[in-house]
C-alpha cells in the first residue's frame, strides 16, 4: 500500500494500481467535479492538479502519482472563493458547464507558474481544454481579469 494526498487528505492506494486517477477521485472519493470527456487526454474535462501541474486524470494511473499531492476542483478553495472561481461567476463563463472544472484547474495551474500571463499565453496554455459550447473568449477574459486585479493590488 502507498499514500497519495487528495485535497489535503491522505488516501491509501494500492501501489501498482493502474486505474486512472479520474476514476479514483470520481468513484472511490465521490469527487465528481472532475469529468470524463474523451478518456484519451484529448479534451481536458478531467484536468486536476498533481503538485501544482495540470494533469489529465483520465490517462494518469494512480501508481504514477504515489506520494504526491492532488487537488481537484472541490479542493481548489474552501467555498468557491478562489479568484478564478469568482472571475468565472463575474464573467458568467459556463454554458453547459461540463468542461468548466477542467478549464478552471488548467487556469489555476497556469497562474501557479506565471502569475501574469498575457492574452496570447493564456490562449495557448488553455488550448488543451475543449469547450464545445464555445465559452473560450469568456475564459480568456476571466483569467485576464484575475491577472489584472493581481497587478493592481501590487
Amino acid at each position, binding site marked *: 500500500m502507498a499514500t497519495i494526498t487528495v485535497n489535503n487528505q491522505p488516501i491509501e492506494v494500492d501501489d501498482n494500481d493502474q486505474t486512472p486517477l479520474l476514476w479514483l477521485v470520481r468513484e472511490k472519493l465521490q*469527487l465528481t467535479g*472532475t*469529468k470524463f470527456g474523451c478518456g484519451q487526454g484529448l479534451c481536458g474535462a478531467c484536468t486536476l492538479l498533481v503538485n501544482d501541474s495540470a494533469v489529465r486524470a483520465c490517462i494518469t494511473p494512480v501508481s504514477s502519482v504515489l506520494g504526491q499531492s492532488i487537488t481537484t476542483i472541490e479542493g481548489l478553495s474552501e467555498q468557491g472563493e478562489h479568484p478564478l*472561481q469568482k472571475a468565472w461567476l463575474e464573467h458568467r463563463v459556463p454554458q*453547459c*458547464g*461540463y468542461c468548466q472544472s477542467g478549464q478552471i484547474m488548467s487556469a489555476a495551474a497556469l497562474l501557479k507558474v506565471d502569475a501574469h500571463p498575457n492574452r496570447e499565453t493564456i490562449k495557448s496554455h488553455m488550448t488543451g481544454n475543449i469547450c464545445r459550447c*464555445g465559452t473560450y473568449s469568456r*475564459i480568456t477574459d476571466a483569467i485576464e481579469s484575475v491577472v489584472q486585479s493581481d497587478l493592481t493590488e501590487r
Partner: protein
Amino acid sequence: MVTRRRFITASFQLALGLSLSAYLPPVRGKQLGTAPAAGSLEPNIYLKVLPNNEVHFWVKKAEMGQHVHTALTQIAMDELGADLKQVRVHMADTRSPFSNIFTGASWSIPGHWVPLRQLMANARFLLESAAAQIWQCPKEQCLAIAGEVVHQLGGQRLSFGELVSVARQLSAVDNAPLRPSKDYQYIGTNMGRLDTNQIVTGQAQYAADLSVDNMLCASIVHPPLPGYKLKGWDISRLKADPRLYKQVELVALENALAIVCQHQWPALVAKDKIDVVWESPTDTAVDDVWLQQQMEYALAQPGIVCRQQESVIQSSDAHTFSAEYYLPFVAHVPMEPPVALASVFENRAEVWAPTQTASQAQSEIAQFLNLDADNVVVHTTLIGGGFGRKLKNDFVMDAVRISQKLKRPIKLQWTRENDIKNGFLRPYGKDRVQVALDERGYPSNLDIKAASPSILAKTDHQHFKNGLDWSAVMGLRSIPYHVPNLRLSHQLIDLPQVNLVAWRGTFANHHCFAIESLMDELAYLARQDPLEYRLKLLQADTKVEHFLDSDIEIEHKKLKRVLTKVADMMQWKTRKQASQPGTGLGIACHCYDTHAYAAHIVEVEVAGQNIKVKKVACAFDVGVAINPDGVRAQLEGSIVFGLSSALYNEIHFENGAIRESNFHDHPVLRHHEMPEIDIHLFTDGDTPAGVGECGLPSVSPALTNAIFDASGIRVRSLPVKLV
C-alpha cells in the same frame, strides 16, 4: 476520506438568492423532492407559493447551457412580481401533471413568452385580490412587486406568504391583464446560470455523477451501423487479464453487448478487449463513394417543389451561372458523452438522463417494458451539451435494457468513441443551383434543387406534407432575396443505414451556406460589393406558409438592418477598399424560422493552406432579450460551433463504418484559434425570438466568403480544404 462540502451550495444560493433543486441526486429510498403542498397556493402546475413565502417554480425545459432555466424564471417571476431570492426552480420530471417535456427547435422562449406570462398574471391577480380583500380596497390599488403586494396609495405591504391563505379561497381567473413592459424588473437584465456556483465548485451534478443503491456501472459495444444484430463475441483477449475478467459480466442485447461491473473503469477497459461479431442487415457496404452515388442519383430525380413563383417578365437568359454547395455528415460531440442511469423494477422504472426528450423517453421505455407510462418516471438531469444529439434516447434505452436483464440499477457510460462512431449524425446535403442573370447581373431565374436524407421518421406524417419533408427545406423556402422566377425543390434520399438527427439548426445550415455563398458569387460576377448586392435584392418581405405553425414572415428591413449594422461594426466599406492580398472579409446573413435575424462578418488571413480567423462580428435582432448576456453567450457559442464545423467537422464512412472516433481525428475549434468577437443586439421588438440555433447558419458562409476575398479561392463544400 474526503467529504463533499455540500454547505457550499447552500451558502452560495444564499449569496445569489436563488436555488435550483432539480439536480439533486436521487435520494435513496425517496423520490425527488417536491415542495410541501399543505396550505400552499397552487394556481397552475408550474407554481406553488408557500405560507413561508417560498415560491416554487417548475420548468419543463432541459438546461443544457442555453440558460433556459434562467430566462424562464426571469419571465415568470417578473410577471408574478416575485423576488428572485424567494424562488426555488425545479426541473419537471415526467410524472403527472407534466407532459410533453421536450427541449429543442430554439422554441423554449418564444413558445413560453405569452402563455407563461398569462399563467403568472393570473396567479398575481389572486395575490393582489387577496390583499384588496384584506385591506378592503379596490384591487387596482394593489400591486405585486418584489415578493410583496404593496398598496399604491397607503404603502401598506403584505408578503406573498402572508397572502396565501386568503388567495387560496379566491376563484381563479384565466385572462388577467399582463404587466406592462415598463414595470419589468428581471426581463432585460443580464444573468448567468442559476447554478453557476455549483458548476465552478464542482458540485453541479450531471447524470454520470449520480448513484443509487445497488447500482452497477456499464459500458457498451455497439454495431458499426444501425440494423446490425449481435452474432457472437470472442473474449480471449479479456481472459488474458484474469483479474479484469473476474470483475466483469457481459450482457447480450439484441443489437449491442454490454459490459457490467461494480466500477466504471474496469467496464471501460474490458470493452476494448472483446471482439464482437455482427450480422449485417444488407450487402451494401456503406462508404463515402456509395453515399455520394446516392446523392447524385437523388439530384437526378425531379424532386418535390417547395416554392415556385413565376413572373411575367421573362429574362433574356443571356448569362447563366451554376454551382453546387455541399455540407457533410457531422457529429454533435457534446462534451458530456451520452450517459444514463436506469432502475427497472418488476412493475415500474425510474431513469435519470441528460435527455432533451424526457416524455418521449418515458413512452419508449413504457412500451419496451410493457408498463403503463404512469409507472415510468424520467428525470431530466443537467445536460452537458445537447445540440440536438440528446433528442434521441438510444443511450437511455441501452441502460433500460441492461437494467431489465440484470434487475439492478445500471449507470451506463458511453465513451467518446461510442458517441462518434455509433451515435446520431446530422445528414449530408447538397444544393444544386442554376441561375439566369439579367443584364445588370441580378438573378432573373433561380432554380435550387436540394437533396438530403431526412431527420424525421417516415411515420412522422405531421412533418411530411405532399411527400415533402418540411424540416429539410428550412431556410430554403424562405429565401429572402427578390428573384422574379423562382423554383425551389427537394429530393429525399432514403438512408436507413445511418442514424440521423437534428443538429443545431440542421438544414438551415445547408441552405444558408448555399444561398449566402451564391449571393457572394453573383455579386462578384456583377462586380458589385457583396453587401450592396444583397441590400439591392432585399426589396420586400417574404412570406411563406409554415406547415405547422403560423406563416414564416421575413421582414426585409430587419435583415437589411443587421447587415448594415454588422458592416458598420467592421468598417466594411473602407476596409474592403483598402484590403491587402491574403486578408479578407466575408459577409452573410440569415433569418431563422423563429424570426431571429443574424448577420455575420468574418475576417481572415489566408497564407497557403493556413487560415487564421482574426475576428467575427455579429449583429442579431432578437426582438426582446429576456437575458441579453445569455443571448450573447449563445451567439458566441454559435460562432465557435460554426467555425468548428466549417473548418474541421466531417464524418467519413469506410467499409460500412464510421472512420472518426475521438477528438484527435474529429477536431473542434480550440482556445488558441479563438478569434476576437464583437456582437450587437437589437432588442426593440415585442416578442423574443429563439436564439440557440439562429446565430449559427450564417457563420460558415461568412467564413468562406472571407476566404474568397483573401485568396480568390471559392469554397463550395465544407469543411474547408485549401489545396
